[in-house]
């Protein structure tokens, strides 16, 4: 159900944006100023006593803050019956360093063992692919017919392929391409998505309708079939192989930017309803400052999580395309096209070391990215779940 994976990945993102979107519309502004101090005081919104306590306790070094309180409160107190201000003022201890939300998020992320494992594994994968080849004796990649199809041995840890090349080295080189394509296409779709999402979210009106309808049209065709069709057309155009990589990046970005645009747009709509944006309006801040100082910093967390997860999606899609021979074609190696060794029955059955390692490489990298992405989401904004 390939269409389902891409769809389902989008669907979880869309699911989130719809949730956020729903909040954006919101009901007619009721002005019930109810004193629900328990409910309102707790940002996390969970109702029972816990959050009320944690909120009360979360203030950093509250005791020394009260010193400042005391000055303003006690000094002007002249109240009969209770002698004013006899308590000695407590010398304020040097407060701890202010912790920004980013530092807090980083701390929460590092506490999440699974996400940290994902991060370390990704680091290893990057070193393996980008630095690894320099350690391998077979970097020069000359085909050596004598050493064809050797099973894994001390000389070739992962054996050799049908052209006698060392599978491990090719795996590293292929990793470079797959990772670069994944990240580049993500960057492209994030830039397009963020830009269009911000514009249609902030300015709304006609431009919003045009962008949204265009995104809808693109999203009516499930990602994978569209990708496969574009891939087929690409191979028709007889594009020289080293340009193909860039066009594959373009195609992956083309099918993933609508999802991101919708996500960013609903985030902007939600933010614009927040009171601190109305405060910016009352303060008479210029649009530029509203966008750069207020909207953008509060969108970055969502952007960070969405782009991390879209790398995983891009790598998966690229591998499927290359496996079908429609994405990056040999001689440039990617994990995907190394897998087409499995197409010949003989290699498939007798030489699993040809196609299992690249498959596992894709799987392990993507799962690490997903774990990191999920950890990032919890760390950055627990409400964003």
């Amino acid at each position, binding site marked *: 159900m390939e269409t389902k994976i891409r769809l389902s990945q989008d669907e979880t993102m869309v699911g989130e944006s719809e949730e956020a979107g729903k909040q954006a519309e919101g009901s*007619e*502004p*009721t*002005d*019930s*100023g*109810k*004193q*629900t*101090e328990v409910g*309102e*005081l707790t*940002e996390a919104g969970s109702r029972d006593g816990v959050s009320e306590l944690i909120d*009360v306790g*979360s*203030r*950093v070094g*509250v005791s020394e*803050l009260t*010193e*400042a*309180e005391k*000055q*303003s*409160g006690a000094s*002007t107190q002249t109240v009969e019956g209770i002698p004013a201000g006899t308590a000695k003022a407590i010398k*304020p201890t040097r*407060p701890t360093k*202010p*912790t*920004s*939300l*980013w530092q*807090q998020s980083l701390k929460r992320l590092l506490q999440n063992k699974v996400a940290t494992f994902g991060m370390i594994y990704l680091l290893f994968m990057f070193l393996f692919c980008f630095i690894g080849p320099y350690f391998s004796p077979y970097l020069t990649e000359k085909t050596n017919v004598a050493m064809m199809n050797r099973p894994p041995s001390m000389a070739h840890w992962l054996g050799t392929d049908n052209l006698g090349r060392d599978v491990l080295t090719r795996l590293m080189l292929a990793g470079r391409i797959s990772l670069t394509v994944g990240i580049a296409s993500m960057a492209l779709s994030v830039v397009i998505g963020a830009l269009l999402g911000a514009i249609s979210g902030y300015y709304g009106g006609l431009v919003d309708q045009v962008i949204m309808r265009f995104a809808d049209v693109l999203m009516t065709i499930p990602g994978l079939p569209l990708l496969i069709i574009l891939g087929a057309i690409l191979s028709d155009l007889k594009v020289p192989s080293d340009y193909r990589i860039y066009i594959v990046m373009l195609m992956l970005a083309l099918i993933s930017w609508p999802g991101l645009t919708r996500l960013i747009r609903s985030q902007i709509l939600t933010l614009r309803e*927040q*009171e*601190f944006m*109305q*405060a*910016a*309006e*009352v*303060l*008479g*801040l*210029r649009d530029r*400052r509203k966008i750069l*100082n*207020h909207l953008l*910093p*509060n969108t970055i967390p969502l952007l960070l999580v969405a782009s991390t997860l879209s790398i995983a999606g891009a790598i998966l899609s690229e591998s499927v395309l290359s496996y079908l021979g429609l994405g990056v074609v040999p001689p440039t190696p990617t994990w995907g096209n190394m897998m087409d060794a499995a197409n010949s029955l003989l290699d498939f059955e007798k030489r699993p070391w040809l196609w299992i390692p690249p498959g596992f490489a894709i799987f392990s990298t993507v799962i690490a990215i997903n774990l990191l992405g999920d950890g990032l989401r919890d760390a950055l904004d627990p409400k964003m779940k």
Partner: protein
Amino acid sequence: MSKHDSKNDKEILLDVRHLKKYYPITGGIFGRTVGHVKAVDDISFTIRRGETFGLVGESGSGKSTTGKTILRLTPKTEGEIIYKGVDLDSLSKQELREYRPSMQFIFQNPYHSLNPRQRIGDAIGEALLDHGMATPAEIREKVLEVLSLCGLSSYHYDRFPHEFSGGQRQRIGIARAIILNPDFVIADEPVSALDVSIQAQIINLLSDLQEERGLTYLFISHDLSVVEHVSDRIGVMYLGSLVEMATRDELFAQPLHPYTKALLSAVPIPDPTLKRERIVLTGDIPSPADPPTGCKFHTRCPYVTPHCRMEVPAYRDVGGGHYVACHII
């Protein structure tokens, strides 16, 4: 609140004339308007310089919407808002921006009115920079001055909102508003989200600031005891309309409108010895989407007459600036 003598306090700072704010209800296939939620329905009142005008009412009374419409946070449907003799709607976006510093707003929810990712020092000083009322060099010193004025310390400058309690965040919101040296401040339920002891601190702070800087307040709240404490004149709103308006002492001494009487008698008094005969209104507050015909209060009014059901009562001065909208008075 003591009267402020230095400036000519007779000058009318804000004159609201027949203000209306209707939210369209869409229906049908093409989403055409099939009705209106009359959130604010023909409100008129004036506020003099140095005065605190209290606006009290229950949920759905439209008091917060009134505040936001006056400052053009949401576009109005009808009516005029004359501020210092200038009709705010005649101003272009740019001209309005220049007027912004002199009219400020304090929000109800301390947790949502501050940008979570911005240090409070920048949050307070940002507007000064943007309006060119201070050079970047002076900013820190000006912010520290207003921080201490609001009961906060210098090392709070670099802190982030999540490190403060509800009461302290409200102080930051106040500091952000007064650093622009405004003449007029709308406080929308500034203390509703706070505990009693913290509430008292903020109310005292607001009155100190009024005395030192000659501020004029529009104080919006659902809590009658707080409104009685802070206001010079009070307007009572019900379902989008002003039903009564008078000076504080007169309104609490002899309320005229049946709703005001019921409202005053419904507030629990922290004195167990007090045995009061309470007017308990029957039924629920009608939905602002389809308000009752004639006088909107007739569905719950103990003195309802057939006349009340047909005709909307005129909002008139029954003597000495005591306005009321009721047929039987």
